């Protein structure tokens, strides 16, 4: 695969499946760390493209790449501050005079609750919300389907309790 083909595929994949990267970045990091993780996710996708053999769907491949990256991510020390500032400069600031959007607030609460789960349960929860079956999640993680079910039920209970606490704190 030459560089032009790799670039085209990178453009297509990151445009069509932006939500996958967005969900993983928000689920595993917050604030400025989120920018750092998003950069790592984009680079992981770029580097993984030549390894894609077309034997699975693009979405399955991207779930593996992004969740693998997020689980093994640690904050990049080298030029961290400069990279994050450059990346943030490309994001327009939120309007400060607009009334808070209820859905936006609920989504932030949901992500905050997800981030409190242990890393593997967090990944399973994100995959579940993105619509993967137990079988698909088991394949991605190397767990059995029953194990996925047990862990997800536990994660859902914890998530529900955390969301109740967060809602009360805001009320």
């Amino acid at each position: 695969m030459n560089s032009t083909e790799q670039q085209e595929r990178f453009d297509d994949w990151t445009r069509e499946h932006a939500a996958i990267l967005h969900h993983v970045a928000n689920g595993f990091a917050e604030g400025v760390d989120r920018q750092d993780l998003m950069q790592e996710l984009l680079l992981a996708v770029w580097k993984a493209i030549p390894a894609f053999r077309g034997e699975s769907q693009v979405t399955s491949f991207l779930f593996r790449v992004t969740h693998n990256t997020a689980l093994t991510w640690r904050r990049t020390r080298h030029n961290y501050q400069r990279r994050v500032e450059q990346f943030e400069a490309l994001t327009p600031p939120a309007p400060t005079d607009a009334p808070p959007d209820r859905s936006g607030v609920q989504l932030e609460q949901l992500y905050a609750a997800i981030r409190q789960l242990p890393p593997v349960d967090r990944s399973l929860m994100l995959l579940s919300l993105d619509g993967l079956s137990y079988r698909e999640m088991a394949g991605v993680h190397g767990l059995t389907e029953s194990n996925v079910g047990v862990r997800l039920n536990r994660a859902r209970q914890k998530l529900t309790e955390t969301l109740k606490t967060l809602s009360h704190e805001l009320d």
Partner: protein
Amino acid sequence: MNWTELETLWRSPHNQPAAPDWDRQRRHVLQAYLRRDRGVRICLALALFWLSLVTGRLVLFLLWPDPVQDRINWSREWAVVPFLLLPWFGAVGMAYRYWRRRRERPDYDRSLAGSLRALLEQSRDSARRLRLMLGMHLVGVPLLALCLVQLQDVGKTTGNQLTSMIVFMAAVVILSVGGISLSWRSQRREIRRLEALLLDYEGTPEGR
């Protein structure tokens, strides 16, 4: 919020990145990465070029010594040859690591647990290599001392020059050992983190 409401919220447009910002961000990340990669290749090429120049000059000394200009007494100044091999080990090692990092990527056909195991093995290998690099200083420092002593023995350095060289080289060695030690500690922390993640997978009754 019940589970159905959560799933509806999850699939809503609020949970998608805004298109124009997203386009700018992803292009910026890729361009910055390609620029950095070019920079690393240029630095490596320059380092190998200068090292080749110095080594080439030494080889000329060996093969076609000028009896007037190139006064080297090899029986008393031989330490410079093995000492020059050390930066070559370093340069070739760095070039190899760069080339290998560009080619290697996680095997995405493996499960995440399998990839974690592979990454843990890689991290342990890195920690071993760092210990080896620290060990090479045990060889390098005596060789360096021998080079300086031999230079003084054949009258090519004065006392002051020798002192300056010792101070400079000592600073380089301390910085080098310090840098490698910090990297090794960081690598150990990473190994512990990966072990904890794997325990989360393998500690469950049916995890594998």
